[in-house]
């Protein structure tokens, strides 16, 4: 039997310390690896559902008990574009990693679009949802921008962030902020103007088509949102222009 003192001395030996550290690493690592692997299918399903919910939410009002997967399947047509606005075959919109695409030059990016086709006439687009990606004040921000059938007026926007300041920049996820974008236009004639969030809060921009009221104390996050929208709208410009021309041809007929 060891006395307390000997026990203490054993605990000071280098061999004991090294073995202890190794064992601790293996046990902790094992538990975490097991948790990560066994929870991954559930987590992936959540992420996918969240993506669909965000796309749908820009266009329509969703209730809590709606079956997101069913509505999404019925309404949304996914496709992937290149910079020129041509459809790329053989790639699923789900498989496009926006984080990776964001790091490429705009002309090289793969651009997913989500079209809400008219139920009576599937050749017509009711709404189109464009994913966007950018950088806020601290970390990445992303969003879905929905345009109406004129491909100019904003139907809705949903913004997400990874780490903006709660109460300040994190307010971009609030409905109140996102509603400010509704009804604004991204084109001024033929020129892409995007929509810019202004500095300062509480000002009335209802007559300005390309400006929305800012968030007090979060001007840098707002700048990030502005850059993100301009960046990605320039990427989608060719696609939007092309479809706008189709639109005017159709109405002239």
């Amino acid at each position, binding site marked *: 039997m060891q006395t307390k003192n000997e026990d203490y001395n054993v605990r000071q030996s280098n061999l004991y310390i090294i073995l202890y550290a190794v064992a601790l690493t293996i046990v902790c690592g094992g538990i975490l690896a097991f948790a990560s692997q066994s*929870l991954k299918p559930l987590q992936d399903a959540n992420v996918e559902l969240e993506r669909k919910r965000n796309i749908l939410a820009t266009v329509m009002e969703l209730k809590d008990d709606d079956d997101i997967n069913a509505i999404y399947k019925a309404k949304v047509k996914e496709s992937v574009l290149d910079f020129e606005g041509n459809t790329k075959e053989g790639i699923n919109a789900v498989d496009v990693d926006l984080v990776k695409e964001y790091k490429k030059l705009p002309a090289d990016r793969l651009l997913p679009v989500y079209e809400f086709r008219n139920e009576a006439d599937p050749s017509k687009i009711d709404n189109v949802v464009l994913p966007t990606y950018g950088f806020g004040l601290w970390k990445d921000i992303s969003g879905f921008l929905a345009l109406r059938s004129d491909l100019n007026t904003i139907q809705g926007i949903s913004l997400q962030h990874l780490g903006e300041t709660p109460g300040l920049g994190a307010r971009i996820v609030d409905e109140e902020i996102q509603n400010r974008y509704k009804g604004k236009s991204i084109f001024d004639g033929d020129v892409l103007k995007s929509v810019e969030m202004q500095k300062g809060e509480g000002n009335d921009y209802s007559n300005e088509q390309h400006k929305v009221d800012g968030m007090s104390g979060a001007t840098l996050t707002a700048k990030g949102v502005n850059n993100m929208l301009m960046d990605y709208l320039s990427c989608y410009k060719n696609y939007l222009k092309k479809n706008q021309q189709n639109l005017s041809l159709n109405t002239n007929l």
Partner: protein
Amino acid sequence: MSTAVAEVVEKKSEPLFSKKNRKLISNPLDIDNPITVQVLGVCSALAVTTQMEAAVVMTIALTIVTASSNVIISLLRNTIPSRIRIIVQLAIVSLWVILVDQLLKAYSYDLWKQLSVYVGLIITNCIVMGRLEAFAMGNKPGPSLLDGLGNGLGYGLILLIVGFFRELLGGGSIFGFKVFEAMNIHYTGNGLMLLPAGACVIVGVVIWVQRSINGHRETH
């Protein structure tokens, strides 16, 4: 050495909810509060108190992590080599934090979206490490559990007080409910309250009020 500084609470076996052990929960709420008296975890108290909701969530997450880490470290306390004890403590804390984060992401995604940032912050929260080092290393699992719960709640109490004033004065709302609008009073939010400096001021006032009530003095 850890065991020397640890406040050894019990020598003989005694019931879990003895008078002495109940104090482990009630003391951190007032005379041994982690933020205002032990001055631990102040950094996160400044970060998560702009809104009440975030403060509540952080309280729950921190209480769970502190209590469970305390129990694990207390169980291992006689095997941990003192030269690497801080790293062992850190590994256990990180283990719990990541597990909580992963479980939330799998089973409560909406909550996870709000909390993920805060849950990650717990790893660096001095309260968890402070309680492991000062208490769990020298006491049995039962009292350590109570100590973890008590300190988590004591931390939460201050968070809620600070969060209440910051959200009310900074944004004019409580738990997102626009108080002043409901009372038909025009109120322009005070931007200072939403910045960390505002939290410093409020924490200072809370310490002042608390000490003038309970007469606590720093001993030198």
